[in-house]
């Protein structure tokens, strides 16, 4: 049974078709990367799977339940793109509050360790660097000890070092048996982390497979060329 599923999902925002009949499944223990240019529909797909947005048609489930249901929320965590997180709370206070939402959260020390925040738990969020801020959001996604993580462009705006550090944390989560849906427009990130890549363009999945299969399918020997090949075509 897939841990999360989109079936024939469509979503329009006014004149814009954000998703046009998207089918997608996330299997237990895999990291699926949803790769696409800006505006391709990645965030819309994630928001539908989180129950934050309702699809116009089609069906979304998480662990066979409605995405917005409490039962679904208890088994997943989400790192979303946030323009502003409350800055006058300490790292520890943010994590303690989110941990309290779950019946069996990770112990605080373990969450801090898993997100690479040990030693800065008493700093105010507003005083952190960009990489540290992203790691706090990662900690909030992780603290409930979820089976499934949603990471919506988790490394956008980070320098190479901070990006690699977060990759290590993500790999550790998958190594423990967790499943991940990662959206990104960094090809390198998808190739480095994903078991499978779904390439999305203008609201449609245009390719799906392992990084090697994606490259082969587009008759390209590197993922960047494959990606450009796949996303250039007009779908009209």
């Amino acid at each position, binding site marked *: 049974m897939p841990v999360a599923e989109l079936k024939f999902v469509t979503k329009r925002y006014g004149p814009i078709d954000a998703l046009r009949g998207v089918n997608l499944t996330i299997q237990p223990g895999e990291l699926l990367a949803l790769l696409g240019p800006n505006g391709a529909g990645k965030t819309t797909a994630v*928001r539908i799977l*989180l129950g934050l947005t*309702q699809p116009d048609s089609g069906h979304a489930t998480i662990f066979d339940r409605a995405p917005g249901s409490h039962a679904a929320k208890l088994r997943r965590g989400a790192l*979303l793109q*946030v323009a*502003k997180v409350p800055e*006058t709370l300490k790292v520890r206070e943010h994590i303690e509050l989110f941990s309290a939402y779950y019946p069996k959260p990770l112990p605080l020390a373990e969450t801090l360790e898993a997100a690479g925040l040990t030693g800065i738990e008493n700093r105010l969020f507003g005083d952190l660097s960009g990489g540290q801020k992203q790691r706090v959001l990662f900690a909030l996604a992780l603290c*409930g000890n979820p089976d499934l993580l949603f990471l919506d462009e988790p490394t956008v705006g980070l320098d190479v070092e901070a990006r690699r550090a977060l990759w290590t944390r993500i790999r550790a989560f998958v190594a423990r048996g967790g499943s991940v849906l990662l959206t990104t427009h960094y090809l390198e990130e998808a190739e480095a982390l994903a078991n499978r890549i779904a390439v999305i363009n203008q609201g449609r999945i245009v390719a799906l497979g392992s990084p090697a299969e994606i490259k082969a399918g587009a008759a390209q020997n590197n993922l960047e060329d494959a990606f450009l090949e796949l996303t250039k075509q007009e779908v009209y």
Partner: protein
Amino acid sequence: MLRVYWLEAKSEFFKLARMKVYATSTLLFPLMFYAFFGLGMGTQQQTGSMTMAKYLLATYGAFAIVAATLYSFGIGVAVERGLGWLDVKRASPMPPAAYFIAKAAVAMAFGAIVVAMLFTLGAAFGGVRMPATQWLSLGGALVAGAIPFCALGLAIGNFAGPNSAPATVNIIYMPLAFCAGLWIPFDFLPPAVQHIAPALPTWHFGQIALAMLGAPTHGTVLEHAGALFGFGLIFAGIAWIGNSRDRDRVCG
């Protein structure tokens, strides 16, 4: 389960207490205005049968409560909703009511702190003397009166953008306070303003607070409480419309 509500309120409290803007707008302005008008001008001056220092304790108390709730709810919700933080909360298993209950409880707590400071100023420097029961009934009425203004703040927060919210709150609450006689006693206001005052929730709130002091008021406490209840329902309805409208906004 109760622990979630407690932690949510605790976080909200520290979040606001460490924000200089919130602390100055809610603490400093009411205390400063009261010091100017209530203490500076008014220990001798009589309004009806009481000193200005006592009379204005009720109206500046009401003003402090309105400021604490509108800043916390109006600006807080607009920013957290508009800049994505509320989505993170909604995606988590947070009990949906916890967010609002914590905000209301903390706004009331801040209001209660300012009211206690106003009372201290009034008693220490304004020569205000009342039986303990009267101090308590005034304080209780002021804190309870925060509820409809939480709803007004939520309505503003659900409609205003994150950047325009501070200006929106100021544009709404300054006239609401002035025209209701919360800054200057109602009877000193121009007649035109006195005519529109009954249409303002702040006027009913101020009248209830004054009644607790035994000051002459227009209408009964029950009538004013009923009016505030009605305003609270209308604001809650507007907030609800804003919330449903917001649910499906554009995102890439």
